[in-house]
């Protein structure tokens, strides 16, 4: 894919090789965007993991006949368009929307809080959209986990947290890793969520690529950013594989 693109970023425009675009990349503007996306995507991935792990665990431990239904209801909302769902979030988060009305009714706050067009709103939108991508792989690997391992560990006197960190987590690591990958990457590039929910400040890498292609019409620059992004992802993957020696077991 990347190689096609490197070719293409000259082909589509002018047949002239240049490294200028790559030098532009180290412009502080682009570096800042990359860093910001990185942090935002990281928080989003972590949030998804924290929310999804207990959830998948609960579903996988449900009685057999409810498992399918549980999993099903995770997927159904995501068969409808994520754009429209992002729009629905607007209704919940806006100044006189459902969230503020509820919080004021409950007496937690006394004046409406500005939620829309903030980083928080973008984050909520991202987590909301990407949560099932975390739940599905987690569920697949947790469901496979043999309960007897846990029982055995308990019998041998392991405490709850020991069981979790020494047995459950390592055995479901493939799922965790798959989930994190599936969430982290789109989180950096989903341009329409910050578009709808975030401020002009919360520009992700995805927004900037889209801008280069649609607004600025600077295809080579857009392609360059894309290549850089892909390389960055490759590095993350490589580091991941290096950190876990038993890479055969991971994915």
């Amino acid at each position, binding site marked *: 894919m990347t190689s096609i693109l490197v070719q293409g970023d000259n082909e589509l425009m002018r047949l002239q090789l240049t490294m200028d675009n790559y030098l532009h990349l180290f412009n502080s503007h682009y570096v800042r965007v990359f860093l910001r996306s990185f942090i935002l995507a990281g928080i989003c991935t972590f949030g998804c993991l924290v929310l999804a792990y207990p959830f998948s665990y609960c579903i996988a431990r449900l009685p057999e006949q409810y498992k399918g239904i549980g999993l099903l209801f995770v997927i159904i909302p995501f*068969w409808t368009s994520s754009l429209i*769902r992002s729009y*629905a979030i607007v209704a919940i988060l806006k100044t006189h929307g459902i969230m503020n009305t509820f919080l004021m009714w409950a007496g937690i706050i006394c004046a409406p809080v500005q939620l829309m067009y903030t980083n928080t709103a973008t984050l909520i939108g991202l987590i909301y959209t990407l949560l099932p991508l975390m739940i599905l792989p987690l569920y697949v690997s947790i469901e*496979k986990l043999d309960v007897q391992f846990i029982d055995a560990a308990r019998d041998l006197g392991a405490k709850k947290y020991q069981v979790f960190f020494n047995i459950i987590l390592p055995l479901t690591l493939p799922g965790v890793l798959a989930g994190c990958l599936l969430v982290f990457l789109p989180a950096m590039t989903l341009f329409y969520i910050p578009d709808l929910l975030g401020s002009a400040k919360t520009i992700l890498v*995805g927004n900037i690529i*889209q801008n280069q292609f649609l607004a600025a019409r600077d295809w080579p620059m857009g392609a360059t950013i894309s290549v850089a992004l892909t390389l960055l*992802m490759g590095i993350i993957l490589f580091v991941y594989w290096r950190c876990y020696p038993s890479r055969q077991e991971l994915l």
Partner: protein
Amino acid sequence: MNQIGKLIYLIVIYLFLYAPILVLIVYSFNNSSYSLLWKGFTFQWYENLLKNTDLQIVALHSLVVGIFSATGATMIGTIAAVSLYRYRFFGKKLLHGLIFVLIVSPDIVTGISLLILFSAVKIPLGFWTLLLSHITFCIPFVTITVYSRLVGHDRNLFEAAKDLGATDGIIFSRILVPLLWPAIVAGWLLSFTLSMDDVMISFFVTGPEFDVLPLKIFSMVRAGVKPEVNALCSVMFVITLTMVIIYQFLVWKKQK
């Protein structure tokens, strides 16, 4: 006590997932074009929808592409996962790595690359390019889902089957497919979801005469969301819900 805590947690997450959809459905009955405030009950948007053949065609396009690409991707992806797990062949490691490159490369990059590929081979943009692209970007997700289920299964199972005289075809259909069934279904559902949801790749690879729902909605959102779209999505939600329930019912019946 612990059970109740678990149940509450499940309900909270489901509420988080469903609240926006419920809001969407409620607003599709709202008697006001642009306001987010409640102005009374109406069926007006659904009536508009019945008259709007344009939107219906677009929705149908999305559904067709979603079903075909999910099926294609699931077949290819499952076979890929199984071959990666069972067989040794030249370039296996490379192929394994390439699957990750595909997942790792952002949608927007995939979209541009496919566009360049199609224009290089001179395939006119439209239904086929869209379908091919959707199959392409769904395959790695299926492969990963199926593969992570395969890892950890006892390899002796296949050896035993082979000793008893089973051919590779029989091993695949009698052992692997039933073993992997949950993952295959999950992979199909994931592909369908991705295909129905995708804005970026479709944006680059589809022609002007073949519009899909997310693209249509995207252009509508930019111009201000119309309540018709809310109504359309509510209808689609109900249709998918029915479809999924029927499907699930069939699977259960088979198991019994």
